């Protein structure tokens, strides 16, 4: 029975994942890999950073995801004058029925299931860091009082790679809190034609919820626990640890990587690799992680955790190139 139960749970995960993906695909044309990465990040219990130029569907993807999962959705447009209280909430003086005046906490937009932090790099570091506690601890502290966020809590932040004037580069510590970073590229010719056709007609497609709104948060949490249950053999842990160490500019690593990387991935990168790989294993119908699963999520997991050197910048080397190099040199770790 136990094996059958596990097989049924995996099938259920696959069905839910596939259904959400199909619903999002009704309104979002293309970007299949990005949608998969976002869903993987959600079920792995992390947060995702999306980098893309304006108008490529970042907001639409996040909104569609929330609608498909029947989860609450909030959006914060980050600007330079955004204050931390605008995110976490604030205390206001209110009068009770007895006529007493007391401070009451008004929750901010962070109290939701799916939060879109649009153009997060436009806010000041102080405001950005207000989001840190929420992302890491799933709670916020306002005026000494801690308020837990309702699970599931999923942050999707976007970065605009252009118009860097007046922006505040996200600190490495904050970047490290995102499980994945994905890049949203321009759609292809065919995708663009489909986008034009589907968004300018009399009827625009709508997303139907896949989960029951009443039980959706619980169901998502179940699926997240299922992901955590996936088996990881010691040789996979060794591989992931070796992969993370290969991103460090140490003497053991690849010479090019040593030249290109100033700071390698933190241990959080390894955690992201394993959690993402677990989702991939479930999608493949396996109760255990394989090396291929780790490789598949390596780019999304490590891309934003590498601090490139000046040499890499002058040579136009991107983090993806470095990760490809790391994966190539990690071949000796596979068995």
């Amino acid at each position, binding site marked *: 029975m*136990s*094996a059958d*139960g*596990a*097989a049924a*749970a*995996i099938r259920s995960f696959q069905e839910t994942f596939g259904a959400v993906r199909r619903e999002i695909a009704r309104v979002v044309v293309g970007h299949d890999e990005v949608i998969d990465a976002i869903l993987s990040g959600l079920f792995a219990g992390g947060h995702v950073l999306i980098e893309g130029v304006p108008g490529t569907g970042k907001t639409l993807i996040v909104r569609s995801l929330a609608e498909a999962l029947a989860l609450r959705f909030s959006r914060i447009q980050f600007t330079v004058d955004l204050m931390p209280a605008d995110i976490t909430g604030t205390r206001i003086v209110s009068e009770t029925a007895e006529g007493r005046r007391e401070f009451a906490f008004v929750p901010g937009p962070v109290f939701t299931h799916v939060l879109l932090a649009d153009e997060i790099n436009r806010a000041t570091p102080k405001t950005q860091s207000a989001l840190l506690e929420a992302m890491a601890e799933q709670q916020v502290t306002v005026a000494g009082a801690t308020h837990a966020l309702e699970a599931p809590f999923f942050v999707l932040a976007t970065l605009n790679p252009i118009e860097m004037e007046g922006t505040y580069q996200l600190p490495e510590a904050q970047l490290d809190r995102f499980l994945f970073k994905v890049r949203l590229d321009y759609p292809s010719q065919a995708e663009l034609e489909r986008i034009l056709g589907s968004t300018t007609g009399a009827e625009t497609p709508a997303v139907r919820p896949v989960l029951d709104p009443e039980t959706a948060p619980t169901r998502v949490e179940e699926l997240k626990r299922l992901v955590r*249950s*996936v*088996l990881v*053999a*010691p*040789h*996979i842990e060794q591989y992931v640890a070796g992969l993370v160490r290969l991103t460090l500019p140490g003497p053991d690593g690849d010479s090019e990587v040593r030249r290109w990387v100033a700071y390698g991935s933190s241990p959080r990168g390894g955690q992201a690799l394993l959690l993402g790989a677990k989702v991939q294993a479930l999608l*493949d119908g*396996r*109760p*255990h*992680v*394989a*090396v*291929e699963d780790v490789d598949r999520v390596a780019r999304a997991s490590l891309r934003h955790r590498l601090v490139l050197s000046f040499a890499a910048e002058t040579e136009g080397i991107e983090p993806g190139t470095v990760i490809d190099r790391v994966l190539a040199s990690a071949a000796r770790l596979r*068995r």
Partner: protein
Amino acid sequence: MSHPGPTQVVLRQVRAVRRRNNAHVAQHAAGLWVSTAAIVATVVVLSALRGGRVAFELVALAGVVAVCAATALLARRVEQRWLRARAAPGRIDAARELRGRLTSVLELEGRARGDFFALLLRQNVDALPRWRPEDVVPDVIPVRAFAGAVVAICALALTIVLAPVLRRPPPRVSIGDRRMDFVTTHRTSGTADRLLVTPGTDHTATQREAAGAADDARDEENEPGTLADASEKLQDWLQQALGVEERWEAGEPVPSGTRQDGARAPRPQKRPAGTPVTDDGAMTGEGKPIDAQGPASRHAGEDAGEPGPGGAGSGAGADADPTLFGEPHDEGAAGGDRFELAIAARVHARQGTAPTPWTDSPAVDRDRHPALAGRQWAEQPGHRMPVSRTFAPIVRRIFAHVAQAQGESP
């Protein structure tokens, strides 16, 4: 909850794959090594039979290098393909695209529990037919490698069996009757297609030649156990072991007609009077053999009044002193690898040259120039060098006329 049953089944199949793979790897390597060694041995034997000293040295050296290289390569190949217990699951996973299923279940056995491990175990049991030992390692016996080894061994055996047929033709012996100057050189060659036996005298070497010869001698003394010596010994040993030398002596005795008439040469004081040398292009100019039709005893008689050191003395004919080289004995038994008589030979191997029939030496025509190049006789000394013990029997046959020598004293 433990799962000893299914895990044991999986482990047994892993062991079966290991056994099968390792047997294949070992046998394949052995087959290839035997093939290589047999081919090298065949070539070495052929070169010992047919080739000269230098050729044999090169072939033997190349053979040793080839065998060593093959051994190293095969050892590396075995090391790479040998399936160790720790690496076996991973290799099977990769070979049969099991996506780490096998490795994970074996590593997690005893550590993991719960539904997911039960499912993993069941998936492994279900996947057992996908990596049956006969599928992972289709052939235990490396047929091609073994066939190659058998063919190579057969070739070696055939070479050994046919060794007497494959040997070089025996050297043609020519008797010269004119005294010839010789200069000692330490250049050697193991085989010759012609031997010249003629009275000789030591050439007064020029200062340069003497220095060169001295250097050669010093080198030879300082390096008594060089690779060349070892190679030469090996070639001689091979020829002896294959029965080539005996067959040559027994099958082709030197006819008695090769004796030359005339006065016996006096016993040499410093070196033998009869000096067999082999002819080559350098000595004859055109490489023509100095055969028995060349100048004979008359020349020897004319030279009788001027015996050189070790040369034929006054009144000596071309016929040699029967005890000139001592009593015949087995040089090989003494462990020598050289014909220890102080004969000199210029060796020039020409394989396949048809031997000239043995004939008695005719009377020397005074006006006729010897077959050796004129400059060779008159101005340029021949090279006198150690020759292989292979030539000992033929020279002994020519000179050791015991019956004739019994009534005469040297």
